[in-house]
């Protein structure tokens, strides 16, 4: 089984960590343990799927620094056990890296998670880490990526060089999962443009700088696309989908202007090597009302336009869509927050509604409520296979 194989690979690293713990005093363990239950409103579209899903997850993190913070070691592992969904039971080494900080450069070697970009609805520019697709279908969760990263920090900006050693393939939901394509995607048989397959070494450069109210980032990527295309493969009487990973070049730009209560955001990519060359953009605005009527309540209005020049042949569902969001923060002792959003296809009729709310209970427990609603998804839309997958999810997390 895939998960046990990964666990065996992690074992020596865990032993290494436990040794360094006994030697040092400054080591720090944190993390969380969570229980989650998800209920679907409608009957399953496909066989094998369930109505209710339950799972538990553990996410320990370790940090140790020495030489007054000049050198440090960071590690974190994410593991989930799902009781109804085989593919969602997984373990991943999110981080295990060494950092060396000098006067104007920083070196990091190991498995890391990094984030590039400014927009909320999708993350076009953010290409270094593979999406953890079995953990979350919205693309917010990422797998750890092995790398060597040198950051050069100057008055004129920061230049980050990345050598990405080893490709992490995307895992897809098994047949017992909801929120999946009708045909099960077989990631074990993934195909690659490069003969080196998963061991192809990828490269990335990012320049970022702050100029007054403007935060800008410019990035170049060459290597295996994190996002696959799919090939239909006939296997006897069955047809299955197999991911195909192209070698791509991607240029990305992300900009945010922070002007009083306004945030102006834009992300744009130009990608070649994956079918036709294309451009995709997200352009967004955010306006916040703070401390409304001196109650401490903040309300933020967010809108973003999502565009993909490939239109109907786009590999994601957002080729010309509009997102509207409403953010609430009570700024109370329990840090109560909520985010409601809607993504509407401008050309078609597909609508995705989402709600997420969370609140702390006591000092160490957090409760999170999440809901998704998919409506008017016609059979031309990539979201069609989610048409009966409206759900509500409740999560209780214990933080230590």
């Amino acid at each position, binding site marked *: 089984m895939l998960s046990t194989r990964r666990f065996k690979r992690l074992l020596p690293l865990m032993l290494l960590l436990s040794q360094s713990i006994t030697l040092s005093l400054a080591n720090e363990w*944190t993390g*969380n343990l969570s229980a989650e239950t998800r209920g679907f409103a409608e009957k399953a579209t496909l066989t094998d799927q369930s109505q209710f899903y339950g799972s538990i997850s553990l996410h320990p993190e370790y*940090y140790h*620094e020495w030489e007054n*913070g000049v050198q*440090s070691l960071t590690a974190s592992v994410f593991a989930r056990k799902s009781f109804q969904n085989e593919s969602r039971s997984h373990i991943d080494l999110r981080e295990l890296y060494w*950092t060396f*900080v000098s*006067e*104007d450069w*920083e070196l990091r070697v190991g498995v890391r*998670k*990094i*984030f590039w970009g*400014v927009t909320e609805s999708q993350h076009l520019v953010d290409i270094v880490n593979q999406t953890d697709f079995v953990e979350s279908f919205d693309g*917010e969760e990422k797998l750890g990526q092995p790398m060597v990263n040198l*950051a050069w*920090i100057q008055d004129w900006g*920061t230049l980050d060089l990345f050598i990405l050693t080893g490709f992490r393939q995307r895992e897809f939901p098994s047949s017992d999962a909801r929120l999946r394509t009708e045909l099960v995607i077989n990631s074990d048989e993934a195909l690659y443009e490069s003969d080196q397959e998963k061991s192809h070494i990828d490269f990335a450069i990012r320049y*970022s700088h*702050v100029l007054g*109210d403007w*935060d800008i980032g410019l990035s170049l990527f060459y290597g295996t696309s994190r996002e696959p295309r799919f090939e239909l493969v006939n296997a006897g009487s069955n047809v299955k989908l197999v991911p195909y990973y192209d070698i791509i070049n991607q240029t990305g730009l992300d900009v*945010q202007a*922070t002007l*009083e*209560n*306004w*945030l102006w955001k834009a992300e744009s990519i130009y990608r070649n090597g994956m079918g036709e060359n294309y451009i995709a953009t997200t352009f967004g605005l955010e306006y*916040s009302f*703070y*401390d409304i009527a*001196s109650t*401490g309540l*903040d309300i933020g209005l967010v809108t973003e336009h999502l565009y993909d020049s490939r239109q109907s042949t786009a590999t994601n569902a957002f080729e010309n869509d509009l997102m509207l969001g409403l953010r609430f923060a009570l*700024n*109370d*002792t*329990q*840090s109560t927050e909520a985010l409601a959003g809607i993504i509407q296809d401008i050309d078609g009729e597909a609508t995705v509604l989402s709600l997420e709310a969370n609140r*702390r209970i006591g*000092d*160490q427990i*957090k409760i999170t409520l999440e809901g998704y609603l998919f409506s008017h998804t016609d059979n031309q839309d990539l979201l069609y296979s989610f048409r009966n997958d409206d759900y509500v999810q409740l999560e209780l*997390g214990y*933080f*230590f």
Partner: protein
Amino acid sequence: MKKQIPLVLVTGFLLFNLPFNVFANTAEERGLAIAKEIDRRDTGWDDQKATLVMTLRNKHGDETNRENRMSSMEVKGEGDRSLIIFDTPKDVKGTAFLSHTHALESDDQWLLLPALKRVKRVSSSNKSGPFMGSEFAYEDISSQEVEKYSYKYLKDEVINGRDAFVIERFPAYKKSGYKRQLVWVDKEYYQPLKIDFYDRKNSHLKTLAYHDYKQYLGKYWRTSRMEMENHQTGKSTTLTWKKYEFKTGLKNRDFNKNALKRAR
């Protein structure tokens, strides 16, 4: 031959009298002179580190604690820079907040969200909202530049057995939650002993009392405990400062986006 007064004596006389120099005639001039003297005496510490514990208390007296670490540095001709790292509550542990203060322009602020590894530039227009669910607003704990207010000297008064000036100050920056503040300034420390905050409707909103001043490096006075009481909600917050360190060698480079990304 005319006897000349030595120049050294003249400048010495002027320096000695700086806070009450001959130009400070009106109440406004005297108020400003006191504010400038507070600033002058608190210059030259270069950088400082401290831990702070916030004790949040609701009107029933239930308490909850928030632990943070804060470092800051002086920037000549500009506002201070500061970095706050949250240690508890555990679900926000590792969240860090970087701020570049400006006197009258809006501050530059970034937030590190550790779970997403994401650094977000955030609007600094939220001046009056609660900081971490406490009774302190962002504007109460951010760097107090002279230009942020206009001033008026009111009177001298003895408070808790200490001689103090009482000055009134009016926010000159946008989006303040206050119409005015009354500040009791200790004549020896040149630091506040008490501040009364009046909301935009000019009703008494909060009182902040400073306790247990200690002197560091033989020069800089720092409070060990701040008590903020909200008269309108009955809630209160205690800020306890510990482990002050000065001139630790922090640089610009410790207060940029890269530093925020590796804040622990």
